[in-house]
């Protein structure tokens, strides 16, 4: 087994709400390997977003460590750390500043990390837009009037601009229409191959997970309850909660109904 690119070791996170304590993440250890797409699946309150935030350095673990290429990441991240791990958010409407041009939003990442010469950066922005399947002339426009799919492509381009190796995808397609979702997922797949990226794909949608992830980690109430290869997990989930999640997915084809019914120890529909 190769060394993991990202390694989460015995991480816990507590929040204080008034006088009571909430254990958002409870002693979680997992490894993310270079070039893979690891899906993190769970419902609200499962702790999946808290974990993502800690990976991104937006909150320090109460205990435990997060290592990037065997080096522990500090709570206060430097620019160099920031450069390693990027994010694509769920809501395409709020992810872009409505009062800055698309080009300026992309330029920011290049400027902060000093990628390329100043004079070359407009061309780099154009190249990024092209890479995510958008018109390079879009750089001068404001994001208002763009569709959710276009905005999400820009958000992906912004993550690419940092030239990071790990991208946290936080429900990147759940706000998109299904036809747009398919295009964006295909784009993500293509970029993973061409740029040798590692994805941490946070989602609640198991049918997306089935088609994009190499491995799946299932979270329930802050605990990692199951982690397995995608094929294995869907063929033979070992945890009841995983089966419940699978059986709650609204499906469209008879084969899926068969798969779901075979699993369902809890009939939801």
């Amino acid at each position, binding site marked *: 087994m190769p060394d993991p690119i990202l390694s989460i070791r015995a991480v816990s996170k507590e929040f204080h709400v008034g006088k009571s304590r909430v254990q958002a993440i409870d002693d979680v250890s997992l490894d993310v390997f270079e070039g893979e797409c690891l899906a993190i699946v769970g419902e609200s309150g499962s702790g999946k977003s808290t974990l993502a935030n800690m990976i991104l350095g937006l909150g320090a673990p109460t205990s435990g460590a997060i290592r990037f290429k065997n080096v522990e990441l500090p709570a206060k991240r430097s620019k160099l750390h920031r450069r390693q791990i990027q994010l694509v958010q769920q809501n395409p409407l709020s992810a872009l500043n409505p009062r800055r041009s698309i080009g300026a939003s992309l330029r920011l990442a290049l400027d902060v990390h000093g990628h390329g010469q100043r004079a070359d950066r407009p061309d780099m922005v154009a190249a990024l837009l092209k890479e995510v399947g958008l018109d390079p002339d879009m750089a001068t426009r404001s994001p208002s009037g763009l569709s959710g799919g276009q905005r999400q492509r820009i958000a992906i381009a912004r993550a690419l601009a940092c030239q990071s190796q790990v991208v946290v995808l936080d429900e990147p397609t759940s706000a998109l229409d299904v*036809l747009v979702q398919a*295009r964006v997922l295909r784009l993500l797949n293509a970029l993973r191959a061409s740029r040798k990226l590692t994805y941490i794909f946070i989602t609640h949608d198991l049918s997306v997970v089935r088609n994009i992830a190499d491995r799946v980690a299932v979270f329930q109430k802050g605990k990692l309850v199951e982690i397995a290869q995608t094929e294995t997990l869907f063929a033979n989930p070992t945890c009841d909660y995983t089966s419940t999640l699978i059986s709650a997915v*609204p*499906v469209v084809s008879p084969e899926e109904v068969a798969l779901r019914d075979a699993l369902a120890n809890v009939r939801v*529909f």
Partner: protein
Amino acid sequence: MRPDLTLDIKNLRLSFRSWSGSTEVLHGIDLSVAPGERVALVGESGSGKSVTSRIVLGTMQDVRHARVSGQVTFEGTDLAKLASVERRALRGREISMIFQDPSSALNPVFRIGDLFHEVLKRRHPKISKGEARQRAAAILQDVSIADAERVLSSYSFQLSGGMNQRVMIAMALINEPRLLLADEPGTALDVTVQAQTLSLMRDLVEQKRTSVLFISHNLGVVREFADRIYVIYRGNIVEHGPTAAIFDAPQHPYTQALLSAIPRLTGGGVPDIEERSLSFNDPMISHGTDI
């Protein structure tokens, strides 16, 4: 006009006036719901599905820049012939609605019990607080809420999203409306909770023989719920028919694309489908089931 239908929409058009001129968002929609029937209107964002429900609810007609034409008939009454006050009287009594996000649809400054009282007063203006509470408790049992008393004494922010959704379903059905409009119910909830509340809702409308117009972007959800499906694309109905026909033999290129774009739980990768195609504007296909 068909008085035997719960809802009958003929050639419905909607346009908005704005600074850049007038834009038509519904280009002449025909849709009907028979008594006790569960009909789904499925489309992507911006297809016009939500404004359609707003028109049936009668709130779109009061929007300043909106122009509605065509005929919307509810149990034989043309909604356009009603005054704004009369349309309002239908809401909450004969037509009720369930919204996408239950937590924001329930007023947080009133207890659930008081909200039920207000809703019941729309049909029974003189109903007492005690009686309202009794009836509310009874219908909460129907949506599988065991400790109805605790829920009635709570505020919406003290309850979970799933609990609020059940409360909303109960509230929408307590006045025994003839028509229930459900606009993406449960989309804001977790999948397991969504699945449970949808099945509760299905059982309850079946039992009360309420007609339902279910607005959704998710064909999977609709498949579990609807008798008949209309697929809407950019303000036009492109295909309609019984649920089985739409899923087993979709004829319109847009319906086909929509269906094949959904990632399958059984795997097979992410399908390669264009977001847009000229063929999506092909003429409407009807599965010959006009009632």
